[in-house]
């Protein structure tokens, strides 16, 4: 029987910190990225070899989008966009490795059923991970809005509608819209990755349910694993590009009000970013 728990399973505790299997997934992703960064630091050169080019590829690709959309301040928030993308991508792809979600301890739950508690779980299949990233993204675009617009200017933009008499109606909508970004970012990623986990578990269960189905146990999950690789990439891109869009919008509000920072040629265009992504 397929059992995928919504909440990440707790493995052990270090003092007050309870370590879950999704934390292990996040730590593994962190280790992979830090290892890559350490290797790059020592081995990179102006003329790249294949491995260096492979590592530079996503950053160069994203930097093209961020540079084209973010205007003059793109370098300030580009690392956040790169970091979100790479972290989610590596975490998603690591979850497709054999053993992730399938090797663990068999325990009995409160209903007396035997369940598998895997040692490693897809990091993004835990709302703590996606919510944490969404909160960071939220704080970042508010901070960039403050920085570009000033605290008063940003709050004025947020709380006072145009025309002013529409404020009682529009301000709550505006606030909800801003706050909903946390929910939309976190739940989209969590939902997609968790659904992918469920889908894969279901496919494994279905294809291994009977002896006659066993030949399908190789081919069918392989198709879905390929799709999950694609979805993992798309979800990482969507999260990163939406974070970038929110930040550029926060900066753009400042520009639209005619400040010293106004550069008509470098107006941010979230649509252009998404078009670039689609291309």
């Amino acid at each position, binding site marked *: 029987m397929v059992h995928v728990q919504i909440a990440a399973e707790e493995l052990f505790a270090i003092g007050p910190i309870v370590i879950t299997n999704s934390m292990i997934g*996040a730590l593994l992703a962190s280790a992979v*990225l830090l290892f890559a960064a350490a290797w790059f630091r020592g081995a990179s050169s102006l003329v790249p070899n294949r491995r260096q080019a492979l*590592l530079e590829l996503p950053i160069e690709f994203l*930097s093209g989008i961020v540079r084209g959309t973010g205007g003059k301040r793109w370098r300030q928030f580009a690392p956040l966009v*790169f970091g979100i993308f790479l972290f989610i991508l590596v975490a998603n792809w690591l979850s497709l490795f054999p053993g992730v979600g399938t090797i663990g301890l068999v325990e009995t739950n409160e209903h007396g059923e035997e369940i598998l508690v895997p040692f490693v779980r897809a990091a993004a299949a835990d709302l703590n991970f996606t*919510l944490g990233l969404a*909160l960071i993204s939220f704080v970042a675009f508010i901070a960039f809005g403050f920085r570009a617009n000033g605290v008063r200017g940003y709050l004025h933009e947020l709380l006072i509608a145009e025309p002013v008499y529409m404020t009682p109606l529009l301000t709550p909508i505006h606030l909800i819209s801003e706050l909903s970004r946390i929910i939309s970012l976190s739940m989209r990623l969590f939902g997609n990755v968790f659904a992918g986990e469920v889908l894969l578990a279901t496919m494994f269960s279905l294809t291994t349910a009977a002896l006659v189905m066993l030949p399908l146990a190789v081919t069918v999950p392989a198709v879905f694993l390929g799709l999950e690789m694609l979805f993992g990439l798309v979800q990482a891109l969507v999260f990163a590009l939406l974070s970038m869009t929110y930040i550029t919008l926060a900066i753009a509000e400042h520009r639209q009000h005619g400040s010293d920072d106004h550069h008509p040629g470098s107006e941010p265009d979230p649509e252009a970013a998404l078009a670039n992504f689609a291309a």
Partner: protein
Amino acid sequence: MAFFEAFGVDFVKLAFQVINFLLVLYLLNRFLFQRVLSLIDERQTKISKGLEDAETAARDRELARAEREAALAEARTEGQAMVARSTKAAEAARDEILATAKAESARMTEQARAEIVAERDRAIAELRGQVADLALDAASQLVRSTMDGPTQRKLVADFLAETAPKPGSKN
């Protein structure tokens, strides 16, 4: 709160994920992103400079080619002028040599002719003397008379003067 409980969200786990990500982001930014961005900038600068240098080199090459062609054309013109000058000088020298040779030849011819004439005149004079002597001998033998020398010589000279060719006639 029940919603968060259902999804296993709690503050400590959330804080762990946030801190973990921020730490990784800091290290990645320091050791990877900034390095990659600086490499990209460096490459763009180098490529731009390379293209600019290539354009400058092409311009210089074109300029050098034009200069070389101009120098070649000048050298060719100068060479042709030198050849023309040399030809002219050679022709002048040839003409001068020819003229000198002709003059020398004419002088030598004239000199030879004068010598021949002098020789002929001398021979004629000598011959006349011998003829006169022979005539005197013959006459003395014929008339068997003796005459003094100067009278005889005067008679012979008068005879020869009468028989000598007129000036302007050819001998």
